C-alpha cells in the first residue's frame, strides 16, 4: 500500500478529483468553488483543470443551489455540493431536511437522492459566532441522511468516494482546524464509511470522539500513558448511523467512557452516545460516563475566550484521572 503525506485540504481535493475522473455524472457546485478556488481553498486549481461544466460557481443562495443539487440527483447526476460552513447550511436546511431526506420514503421508494453535501465546521480560527460551529448533531438527527466526519487525512481522501457510491444523501463535515495539517494518505480507505475505528488501543478508559476533537483525544491519550492510564481512542467517523457495536465493544473492554464532542452539551451527540452506553453497556460500567463539550455560548471572537469555550486536551486528561479515581 503506497502512502503519501498530504495536507487535509489536499486530501479532500484529491478525493474530489478522483470522483470527477471516475464518474461522468459527478460535478462540484457551490459558492466560490471555481474561480476563487473555494472559501477554504479545497477546490483550488480544479476549475482550471476540469472547467465550468464540472466546477460550478453559484450565487449566494444556499437553499437554491442545494435544491438544484437535490433535483439534479433525482435526475440521475451525482452532485457534490459545497456549502461554505455549517452556519450557512441553515439557509439550505429546508432542502436538506424536507426534500433530500424525505423524498425516498415519501414516494414509497420510487426515487432516491444520491447527493453529497460537504461543509466546513468547527471553531479555532477566531471566526466568531456565525462561522465556528459544530452542528453535526442537527443533521445526525434526521432519518434519511447519513452524516460523516472524516477526522484523519485518509478519511478526508476516501470518504467522499464512499459517499458518492451511496444511493442516498450524505453530508460530510470538514473541520477547519484540520485543513492545514499534514497526515498520511494511503491508496484506499481503512473501512466502510459506516464503521467507527479504534485509533489507539487501550484498556482503562474509552475516549469516544469524532472530527476535530480526535487530535485532542489522541494527545490526551499520550499524556495519560505517562500517568499509567491506558486510554482507548474511538473515532466515530460516521455520525448517522452511529456504529453502536464499536462503541459498546470499546466500553465493554475499558469499563469507562469519556465522550469528547465539540458541539454544545445540551442535545449533543455526546448525550446520544451516553444514552447508548447506558442502554447497552450499563452493567459493564465502573464509573458514570463523562462528557466534554463546548461551553454553551455563541463562539466568541478573542482567542482566549474561544479556547476557553472548546474542549481541551487538559480537560480530557483531568476527566480521565477523575474517572479512574471513581473506581
Amino acid at each position: 500500500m503506497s502512502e503519501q503525506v498530504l495536507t487535509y485540504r489536499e486530501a479532500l481535493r484529491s478525493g474530489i478529483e478522483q470522483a470527477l475522473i471516475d464518474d461522468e455524472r459527478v460535478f462540484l457546485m457551490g459558492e466560490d468553488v471555481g474561480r476563487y478556488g473555494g472559501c477554504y481553498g479545497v477546490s483550488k486549481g480544479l476549475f482550471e483543470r476540469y472547467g465550468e461544466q464540472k466546477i460550478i460557481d453559484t450565487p449566494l443562495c444556499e437553499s437554491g443551489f442545494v435544491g438544484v443539487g437535490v433535483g439534479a440527483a433525482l435526475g440521475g447526476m451525482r452532485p457534490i455540493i459545497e456549502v461554505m460552513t455549517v452556519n450557512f447550511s441553515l439557509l439550505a436546511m429546508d432542502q436538506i431536511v424536507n426534500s433530500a431526506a424525505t423524498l425516498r420514503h415519501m414516494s414509497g421508494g420510487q426515487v432516491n437522492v444520491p447527493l453529497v453535501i460537504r461543509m466546513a465546521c468547527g471553531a479555532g480560527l477566531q471566526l466568531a459566532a456565525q462561522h465556528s460551529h459544530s452542528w453535526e448533531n442537527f443533521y445526525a438527527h434526521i432519518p434519511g441522511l447519513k452524516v460523516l466526519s472524516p477526522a484523519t487525512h485518509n478519511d478526508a481522501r476516501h470518504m467522499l468516494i464512499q459517499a458518492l457510491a451511496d444511493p442516498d444523501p450524505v453530508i460530510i463535515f470538514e473541520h477547519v482546524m484540520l485543513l492545514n495539517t499534514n497526515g498520511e494518505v494511503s491508496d484506499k480507505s481503512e473501512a466502510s464509511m459506516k464503521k467507527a475505528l479504534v485509533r489507539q488501543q487501550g484498556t482503562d478508559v474509552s475516549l469516544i470522539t469524532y472530527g476535530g476533537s480526535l487530535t485532542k483525544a489522541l494527545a490526551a491519550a499520550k499524556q495519560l500513558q505517562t500517568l499509567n492510564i491506558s486510554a482507548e481512542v474511538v473515532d466515530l467517523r460516521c455520525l448517522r448511523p452511529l456504529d453502536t457495536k464499536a462503541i459498546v465493544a470499546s466500553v465493554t473492554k475499558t469499563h469507562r467512557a469519556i465522550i469528547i464532542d465539540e458541539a454544545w452539551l445540551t442535545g449533543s451527540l455526546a448525550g446520544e452516545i451516553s444514552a447508548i452506553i447506558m442502554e447497552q453497556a450499563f452493567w459493564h460500567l465502573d464509573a458514570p460516563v463523562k462528557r466534554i463539550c463546548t461551553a454553551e455560548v455563541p463562539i466568541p471572537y478573542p482567542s482566549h475566550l474561544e479556547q476557553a469555550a472548546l474542549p481541551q486536551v487538559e480537560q480530557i486528561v483531568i476527566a480521565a484521572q477523575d474517572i479512574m479515581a471513581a473506581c
Partner: protein
Amino acid sequence: MKQKLHLDRAHLLAQLKQMLRIRRFEEKCAELYAQEKIRGFLHLYIGEEAIAVGVMSTLSAKDNIVATYREHGHALARGLSMKSILAEMYGRTNGCSRGRGGSMHLFDKSNHFYGGNAIVGGGLPLAAGLAMANKRNEKQALTVCFFGEGAVAEGEFHEAMNLAVLWQLPVLFICENNRYAMGTALALSESEINIAKKANSYGMAAEQVDGMNVVDVEAASSKAVEQIRQTNKPYFLECQSYRFRGHSSFDGQLYRDKAEVKLWQEKGPVIRLISWLKENNRLEDEELSNIEAEIKDEIQAAIVFAEQGEWEPIADLAKDVYSPAYTTQGEQS
C-alpha cells in the same frame, strides 16, 4: 412555431372531460374526507382545473413535473390513474406512493411526476435541478414546475428564478395565481402584484394568462413549451385563477366574501367551456351526460380499488428511509 392548436371539437371535448374528471374527483374527495376515509390535509383544485389540463396537454411523456400539495388535478391530468391517486389518499399500499405520502405527496416516477411538495416554494429549486440534469444529459425533456402565488414571497422563488435564467435551464414555471395564500390576499403580501413582471425582471420570458380558460392556457403553454425546446431557456406563465373551495379542509373562509366566490364561479373553467360549446352547437346534452356517467364509473372503480387496498405492514415502517443495502469500497458487512 407550432402555434396551431387542435381546436377541433374532439379535442375540446377531451379537455372538458379532463377538467370534469378533476372536478368530480375533488368533489368526491371532499365527501370521502367528511366520511373520514381520507385524513390529514386535503387541498382541492376545484376552480383551477383549466391550468393543469391546459398545460399537461402540451407536454411529452418524458417531461418532468414538479407540483405542490394541491396536486390531485395535476396527477390526474398527467395520466396517473385515478385509482392509484385515491388509494394514496386512503393510505394504502396500492397508492401511487405506497400510501406513504397521502394527498400532498403524490409521486409516480414512470410518469416523471416528482411530487407533491408541501413546502411552499420548495419545488422550484428542485425543478431547476431536474432541468439541469436533463440539459447535461442532453435530453430534450423539459421540467414543468407548478406553484401558487404564495410561493412568490419565498426566497426560494427568487433564487430559482435567478438560477434558471443564469444557467439557462429548460424549466416551464407555472404560477397558479388563485389570489389567496391560505387566507392572505396577494395585495396584502406583495408590493408588486404582477407576478409575470417579477419573473421578467430576472430576464425570463413571462406572461399572464387567463387561467380560467383552458384554451388560453393550452395556447400559452404550447408556445412556451415550443420556445423552451428550441432555446433551452426557462419560461414563465402566470395563470390567473381562483380557488372555489377553502385552502384546505380546515378553512372557514373568513377572509373573503361569498359574493366574490360566486362571481368567480360564474366564470369558472368548466362552466365556461360547456357554455361555449353549447352556444356553438358543439355539445349535446346527451354527450355531456355520457361524459359524466363515464367519470362516475371511474370514480366508483377508484373507490373500490382504494377500499380494497392493503395497509402497509407495521414491520415495514422504516422501509425506504434508506436505499436497500449496497456495497462500497471497504464495506465489511
